[in-house]
């Protein structure tokens, strides 16, 4: 039907497009906050005080902002990793393992390479090398899954989960055994501290915010540019939307699947590498606390758009970071935050509810995050 065709983007301004895309997530957050408030009232808390605490704790001071950015850094990278895979039609559940593996690889280069070589390595070589090895570790780990998908049809959801088990348990072994910090006082499963030459310079004395946050924003821009402006991005999106058409168009679909997974794993590995070089200066078993899994939620909330991922990551970071202040002010349990996050995601995933509540008509095509099982 000719005249039924609706004209889209070009007539709309960029701002309008962005606002349209953000509408559902925004309303989902709003609805979750209201519902959360009701729950707080039900447990005899003061929702206004609680939310004030949350905002204070996350954005209310220089320290709060710094801590929020510290949380946001791995969230942005891991969220970008999952979002990039989504764009290529792949579901990377394995960001957690890729991130941890990146952190361990970076830590190893950071503390052991000078010992092996028996020399002090200049920072200009040591730091980039440590980060690159972390990225490569993540890329390699995810690339295996891409290879299996491309050449055997093995589903990436199953395989990334299995690779998570292998990675996380191997790391547990390494941190308790060969790579364990040999300091006689140490009882924790962690690596030794990395050499000074593998550490990133501090931005502000006394604040934990590190260059990783800046790099995360830069990475978001680069991922956006790659996806929307480069021929590689065109290939990744085409394979993601219609692999048959991609093959017809002459795209090497197998190569793109492997490459997409590897790039995704590289971003996750980078998240781990920066945690080590910028923040903790070592890797510890307890350091990676589900970033890779929250990343799936962040990519979903951000609609797999790099800008959306950055905003969603900052929101998640703020909630995690502000939770302590909220608890201090209202004695409400921190678990409330997890519940609030779950509510937000529920409403984003089941956006029909939001559309119904706010009477929003479907206007744009739905974002299909991944094809079904065996797809």
């Amino acid at each position, binding site marked *: 039907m*000719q005249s039924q065709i609706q004209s889209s983007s070009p007539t709309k301004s960029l701002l309008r497009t962005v606002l349209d895309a953000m509408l559902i997530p925004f309303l989902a957050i709003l609805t979750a906050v209201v519902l959360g408030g009701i729950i707080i009232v039900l447990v005899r808390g003061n929702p206004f005080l609680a939310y004030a605490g949350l905002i204070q704790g996350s954005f209310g001071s220089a320290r709060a902002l710094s801590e929020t950015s510290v949380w946001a850094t791995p969230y942005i990278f891991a969220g970008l990793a999952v979002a990039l895979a989504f764009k290529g039609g792949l579901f990377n559940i394995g960001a957690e393992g890729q991130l941890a593996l990146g952190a361990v690889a970076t830590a190893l280069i950071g503390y052991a390479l000078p010992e092996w070589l028996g020399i002090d390595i200049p920072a200009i070589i040591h730091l980039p090398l440590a980060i690159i090895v972390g990225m490569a570790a993540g890329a390699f780990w995810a690339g295996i899954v891409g290879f299996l998908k491309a050449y055997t049809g093995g589903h990436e959801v199953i395989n990334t989960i299995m690779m998570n088990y292998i990675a996380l348990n191997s790391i547990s072994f390494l941190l308790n055994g060969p790579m364990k910090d040999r300091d006689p006082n140490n009882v924790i499963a962690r690596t030794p501290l990395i050499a000074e030459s593998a550490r990133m310079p501090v931005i502000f004395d006394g604040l934990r915010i590190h260059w990783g946050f800046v790099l995360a924003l830069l990475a978001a821009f680069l991922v956006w540019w790659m996806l929307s402006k480069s021929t590689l991005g065109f290939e990744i999106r085409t394979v993601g*939307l219609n692999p048959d*058409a991609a093959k017809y168009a002459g795209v090497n679909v197998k190569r793109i699947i492997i490459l997409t997974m590897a790039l995704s794993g590289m971003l996750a590995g980078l998240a781990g590498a920066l945690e080590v070089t910028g923040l903790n200066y070592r890797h510890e078993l307890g350091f990676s606390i589900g970033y890779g899994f929250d990343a799936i939620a962040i990519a979903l909330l951000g609609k797999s758009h790099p800008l959306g991922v950055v905003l969603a990551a900052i929101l998640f970071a703020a909630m995690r970071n502000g939770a302590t202040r909220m608890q201090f002010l209202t004695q409400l349990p921190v678990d409330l935050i997890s519940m609030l996050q779950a509510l937000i995601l529920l409403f984003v995933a089941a956006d029909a509810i939001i559309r119904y509540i706010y009477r929003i008509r479907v206007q744009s095509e739905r974002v299909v995050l991944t094809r079904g099982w065996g797809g």
Partner: protein
Amino acid sequence: MAKDSKVVLEAKGITKKFPGVLANDNINFDLREGEIHALLGENGAGKSTLMNILYGLYHPESGEVIVDGNQMQLNSSRDAIHHGIGMVHQHFMLIPVFTVTENIMLGAETDHRAVPNEIPLVKLDRKEVAQKVSDLSHQYGLDVDPEAIVGDLPVGIQQRVEIVKALYRKANILILDEPTAVLTPQEAEDLFRIMHDLTAKGVSIIFITHKLKEVLAVADRITVMRAGRVVGTTTPKESNEQKLASMMVGREVILTVQKKPAEPAEEILRVEDLRVRDVRGLEAVRGVSFSVYAGEVLGIAGVQGNGQTELAEALTGLRHIESGHFTLAGNDLTNKAPRLVTETGLAHIPEDRQRHGLVLSYTITDNMVLCDYYRPPFGKRGVIQQKELDANARKLIKEYDVRTPSPFVAAGKLSGGNQQKVIVARELSRPVKLVIASQPTRGLDVGSIEYIHKEIVAMRDRGVAVLLVSAELDEILSLSDRIAVMYRGEIVDTVNVKETTREQLGLRMAGVHEPA
């Protein structure tokens, strides 16, 4: 047939609006008992909207539906079924893993509950339903096995299951929405026979289509719709293809392709003893050899499923070749990547335009460079040149008459004809030596078919070799210079178009050898 019998279904002054379009504008339509009333119109003429109103799926802004003399308020398909209206959709509503019986009883399970409000957990009485299915199937000559798994059945039989399903629900009015679009010529013939059997037993049929030949062959009356309005009602006796086409399109349409005699030059495509397997691993192409020369159209005729699809896929690099080889302009491209084949000079209009030819959620602009995005002027050093893409899209939309409000519309939102024009524009605007066109006009309206045929002939006249694969015998006959008939994976005959007839080809396609 039943000229003066009573009216069983009538639509009076139906008007239905969608945002920005008047889909039905004061439509009057009636169906008499025991007749086949064809509803003819191009895609988007409003046929489906009208049928969805008759079937209770849409509510008209004004107008009324009268069934058996009573005005009806049809609020859902359940109401329509209750009033004896059954619909067979273009895309079947069957569950492939269920048996025929299970599909038919679905939603109409025999209810043995004594107390109405008892828990709805009763034993499904498959036997009883299977018996009924078998009875209905014999009564109307439908020949459906109640125990067969639907997914294993050919499309033509699946369609019969849909018809039995409607009859099982006691339908005496059947709406068939583009029923022949998915059928082979033989299956279509069978369907027409069944339709006549049904009407002879008092069933009334609304037959929605855009194929002129079928309408003239099978209908008692013909109503033509255009742009949401009824243009007129006629009968096959008072009409002919040319008249109907003009009514549909609203202008004179050239049904026969005008073309000069071919001037074949050098050999472009050479295929030697090619063997290809299909998806199930069975040999689908069995030792095929032929050549296509510059400036000629070689048509591959054959009933669907005789290896034409696999042949086209093999020649475009999409399917593995088991043995044999082919060359394009002297380059051996056997089992080479699709990109290399394309770069050597192939344009490919794929059989399944939505699966292979387009990325439906991409804009027209992006789809126009689907094969060329990586090379100048569209891609330079790995960067997409958006300005070049935009200019290219604007130029091709104009040149190839793609009807769209803007180049940024998603391809999936275009009509089938315009989607195909996007593919044709993209493929034929490149400098190529060979065009492989697979079912280039399947499911398209008369206007688009006319246009695409003209473009294919224009390519030929420019000295390009064209390999046309089509299940439509008329298309093969009107476009080809030479015709190769495929039957069970082999080319059984190659003839000059001037030295053959429709009947002869039909026999060859069915595997019948002429007496020597």
